[in-house]
């Protein structure tokens, strides 16, 4: 299981721009490298990252082999209502790593 790290405020004022930062441990193996005996190392990457807030998608990103290991993604969204912020990283095999945080809007 990859480890994740998510930073976002626990509360925000309505209308405020909220900054969200995420990191996930992942090799992002390109498939172009070879191991010490010359065998190709299989491609192994995360292909999609999404963030929904109070049920609505607020950020989506496709990832490719050019992205370094342990991808960091930062973005902003507008605080509208109190709700769950859900983060999903999907790898090339369809395995999903899911994290959830609550944002309280006052």
């Amino acid at each position: 299981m990859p480890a994740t790290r998510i930073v976002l405020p626990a509360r925000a004022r309505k209308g405020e721009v909220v900054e969200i930062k995420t990191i996930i441990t992942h090799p992002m193996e390109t498939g172009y490298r070879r191991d010490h005996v010359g065998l190709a190392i299989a491609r192994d990457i995360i292909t999609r990252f999404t963030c929904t807030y109070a049920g609505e998608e607020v950020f989506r990103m496709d990832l490719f082999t050019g992205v370094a290991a342990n991808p960091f993604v930062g973005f902003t969204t507008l605080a509208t209502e109190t709700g769950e912020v859900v983060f999903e990283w999907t790898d090339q095999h369809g395995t999903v790593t899911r994290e959830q945080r609550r944002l309280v809007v006052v």
Partner: protein
Amino acid sequence: MARRGRRAALGAAGASLMLLAALPAAGQTATEPGIAAGDRKSGRDFLAPETRAQQDDLSINPGMLWVEQGEKLWREAAGAGAKACASCHGDPSALKGVAARYPAYDARLQRLLNLEGRIQNCRLEHQRAAPLPYESQALLALTALVAHQSRGLPLNVATKGPARPFLAAGRAMFFTQQGQLSISCAQCHDDNWGKRLRAERISQGQPNGFPTYRLEWQTTGSLHRRLRACFQGVRAEPFAAGSPELVALELYLAARARGLPIETPAVRR
């Protein structure tokens, strides 16, 4: 510049190195070669502003993933005694300041231990659990966690008494020209810091940020992994990670870095 002159002096000083090794601890005499205390700079000072920001802002510092992994392991019972690190040590913050005085001589074990060695010993002796290999993710995570508790505190290793012969051995290695290129650590990190070596800017080779997230590695690595890369850079056969030779070298590096703040987890190119 004074540094230039020293390089030439060192070239002819193979024999006098042995004498230097017998002198008092680093930074205590005017005859000590190397970097003056006022000129000591962390590798952080040689980074591009973006990389520096990545280190300083813990919310985007990728090394924190290892620290957080270390927090999980800290609470997990392991071994025959079914004890966790937390069972004996409480909160990780109880070990604040510890990393600043490692490597340290252990009189009971009659060995010089670095932080990894100390943790390995706790695991073996106090937890009676399977050893964690050097450079394993678990050992890196626990070491990063313990060192992170001392972030901002100045390095301050003991160099007197039983530590003295280890310091001398480490220092001798630092000044010995090695490998097919026949270059010493000092020739790069004392005499030429601030200059460029191909795409890299040579820093002073300070040990205060380890375990470090290195962008080139795309992962977190130990000081010994970095040292092995430097040995390979001059085409020398590197000592094994965790070997007594590298722990002694680490002691000299820590003494040479006295006063620099711990930055774990640092971010480096």
